[in-house]
């Protein structure tokens, strides 16, 4: 067969006509898809929106039989909460921040080093360690309060922020270690070995190669550890001293809910303020979240 201009042309046309992989959606399907997504988004966003609306109303008008969008709305609730009229809000905030950040830093450091060890080395007690990590997740928090209380008392840490940080680490570290082990497993050992041949010590292999490559996994575990500490109520109310200044936010919010009366407006305003740092942390790690959670599904 000879190659003539016509056959070359035909080949080119065939190449152009090749499907590009983008399937064109029909107008109806497109409408339905966007409609469903819009409804789902509204359902997700509405409670947050309603808390915000409530936070602007005075306590008396906050819960009405016929809800209205605005009713004597103002930012007074926020001003009151921040000014500490209902309790030492700023102290609570600082306590929560210190406890959550310490929990995040300590548990990420401990779990990353532990996870690297179980991911790369086989040592006696390896199986027992992994099993105990899992086992700890089985117990409900309530069961742990009494024994943890006794341990903290023995250590002289009962009532201190650092004691609470340690308590949060006991739940965060095993989970984070399990999660990071899964992540480290996806990093080929060849990279460790190449690093060792290039002149790294075992710890610098971890520090300079494995950890930078695990940013998504570390971000996810940091986020988890932060949330563990930030929003927790049961441990915080049991282990911190009863004085108002030493409370965390989640515990402090309870002052708005009294036996006969709930200050809905102030509660909502405080809730919004509590949510802001969590949202900021989420925003910082969100680009890693999808990659982190999806890792392990497909070898990257």
């Amino acid at each position, binding site marked *: 067969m000879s190659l003539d201009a016509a056959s070359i042309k035909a080949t080119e046309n065939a190449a152009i006509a090749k499907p590009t992989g983008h399937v064109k959606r029909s107008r109806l399907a497109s409408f339905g898809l966007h409609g469903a997504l819009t409804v789902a988004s509204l359902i997700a966003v509405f409670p947050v929106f309603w808390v915000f609306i409530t936070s602007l109303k005075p306590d008396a008008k906050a819960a009405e039989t016929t809800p209205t969008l605005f009713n004597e709305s103002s930012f007074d609730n926020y001003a009151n909460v921040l000014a500490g009229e209902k309790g030492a809000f700023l102290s609570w905030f600082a306590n929560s921040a210190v406890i959550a950040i310490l929990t995040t830093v300590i548990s990420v450091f401990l779990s990353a080093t532990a996870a690297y060890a179980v991911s790369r080395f086989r040592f006696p007690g390896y199986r027992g360690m992994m099993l105990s990590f899992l086992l700890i997740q089985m117990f409900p928090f309530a069961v742990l309060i009494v024994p943890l209380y006794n341990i903290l008392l023995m250590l002289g840490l009962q009532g201190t922020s650092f004691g609470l940080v340690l308590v949060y680490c006991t739940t965060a570290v095993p989970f984070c270690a399990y999660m990071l082990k899964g992540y480290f497993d996806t990093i*080929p050992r*060849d*990279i460790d*070995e*190449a*690093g*060792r*041949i*290039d*002149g*790294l*010590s075992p710890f610098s292999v971890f520090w300079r*190669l494995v950890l*930078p*490559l695990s940013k998504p996994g570390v971000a996810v575990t940091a986020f988890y550890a932060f949330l563990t500490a930030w929003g927790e109520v049961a441990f915080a109310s049991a282990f911190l001293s009863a004085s108002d200044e030493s409370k965390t936010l989640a515990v402090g919010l309870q002052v708005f809910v009294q036996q006969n009366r709930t200050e809905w407006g102030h509660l909502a305003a405080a809730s919004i303020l509590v949510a802001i740092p969590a949202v900021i942390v989420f925003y910082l790690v969100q680009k890693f979240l999808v990659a982190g959670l999806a890792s392990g599904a497909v070898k990257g």
Partner: protein
Amino acid sequence: MAEVAYVNASRVYPGSPPVRAVDELKLDVADGEFLVLVGPSGSGKSTALRMLAGLEDVDEGAIEIGGKDVTNVPPKGRDIAMVFQSYALYPHMTVGENMGFALKLRGVSKPDIKAKVAEAAKMLDLEKYLDRKPKALSGGQRQRVAMGRAIVREPSVFLMDEPLSNLDAKLRVETRANIAALQRRLGTTTIYVTHDQVEAMTMGHRVAVLKDGLLQQCDTPRALYETPANAFVAAFIGSPGMNLKTVPLTAAGAQLDGLEVPLPRTTLDKVGADGLKEVTFGVRPESLGLVGAGEDGMELTVELVEELGADAYVYGSVRIADQPERFIVRVDGRTPPALGQTVRVGLRDHSEIHLFNPETGARIEG
């Protein structure tokens, strides 16, 4: 640059029974030599290389680099560079950073690193890609970066663990030649692991064949091909493999179907002295050929013809002692026989045969 020696080095994995992945390997590699370790999967060739790299423990024996015992020296103290099958590039570093990483760790000054990386990049045609991350490179380019990372360090020994197996066939042949040329230019002692006997034959100054952790033979490619030390090496080296059949002996030679291959008196005496009634007879496909009806030969029923252009390989069966035995014959690519046809196959030259002890597999010198 340095010579390398395995001194009865073994790697034993615990278990019951313990697995001797590398069993008392004794091998001396001269300074500047290109040595290929070849064998089927599980032969211990990669383990042997990793022992030399310090990534695998040496349970018995010792390993020497440049005359110095390095058995207990960590990888970074051995002055070696390794190219991995997966390349093991650092994904978070650019090509330039990847290549210069080892120098950076050694505390070499930035301008010096830059100059050395630039030099290696030029050699490997990577200058345009120095600022890219590995994931933005093609397979062939990544392979070159892995080579570059090894070259930049100017080590005394290069270790390469199947560095071409992730490339497509054409690129592999091209890169094969480039690596061999590069090694010749740099003159660095190189240990190269592969399962591909073609790579082994074309690249190595010497080739060491391993099986089940045991060294079978270490010699030049030609010597391996012409005088394999045992039946395993004979079958492993060469593509397609040697025809190996266990056949009965007669007073004058070996008996294959209608073809009696006369053997020299000395060989027959030797075989007789060992009390062998049979012998493993080996003949390479190119040593067989189609013959006319009147000539000495065996009747071969054609079962498959592989046409490669210049040559064709005919796969067929011959009845030996009433058992069908498969033979491969190389014939002229222009006139291959048809499927199902019966052809007459004879020996090209009576000296182009190999005899092995059917029990031990060892070569019987003729």
